[in-house]
């Protein structure tokens, strides 16, 4: 399995552009079509922004993004050493209803799961490891 990107940056909003830009260029170079690239960008952004906002309440921390290609599956691993947070355990937001029925929370995780083929979480050595997988076809 080829590691295509391994980037470590501080877990702040300012890092978003560089992380997503690298991801996007990499996926393009691997021949993924624009629709899939947009899905990867969305899922990665949602995961990263959750980390920027919530992972490190006490002191600043880092986030690592590792992209790999395994056959026709593109894998994005997003790793932080912040507080334990399993995105796969969150309940879905309500997606029906008008303006007053909708709450802003939970939407990012929901979108992430909808646009990727697989989303996996594990906690290992005091780190959250989120794996996002999308297929080429």
């Amino acid at each position, binding site marked *: 399995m080829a590691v295509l990107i391994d980037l470590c940056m501080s877990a702040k*909003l*300012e890092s*978003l*552009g560089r992380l*997503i830009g690298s991801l996007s260029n990499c996926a393009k170079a691997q021949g993924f079509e*624009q*629709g899939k690239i*947009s*899905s990867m*960008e*969305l899922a990665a*952004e*949602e995961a990263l*922004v959750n980390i*920027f906002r919530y992972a490190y309440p006490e002191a600043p921390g880092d986030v690592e993004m590792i992209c790999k290609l395994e056959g026709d599956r593109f894998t994005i691993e997003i790793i932080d050493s912040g507080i334990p947070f399993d995105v796969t355990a969150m309940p879905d937001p309500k*997606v*029906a*209803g*008008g*303006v*007053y029925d*909708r709450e*802003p929370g939970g*939407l*990012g995780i*929901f*979108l992430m799961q*909808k*646009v990727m083929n697989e989303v996996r979480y594990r906690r290992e050595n005091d780190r959250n490891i989120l794996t996002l997988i999308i297929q080429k076809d």
Partner: protein
Amino acid sequence: MKIDATKEGNAVVMSLKGRLDAAASSEFETRLSDCISKGDSNFLLNFTDLEYISSAGLRSILTTSKKLKEVNGKIVLAGLHGPVEEVFKISGFISIFRVFGTPEAALKEI
């Protein structure tokens, strides 16, 4: 992301160009807020040149929309396409707002 705002009748037309991601959404929300505090309450968001939106972008539109309901104002959308349209559909936000194919069609109605 680039934001162009023009006045058409009693509506502010905000044309977004580029990506409405988490980094761009607070500036966007501030621009909307500034217009509202000047008394504008009808907005057409023109997404013809918008390539991408994330939940942060959706959230800023939802928050602004709730504020506007209190002053009997509204937001309508036009020009959704590609990943932006997809995100609006998946999230259910496409049912919350009036959506037009083109800004011209929207301006005839509002």
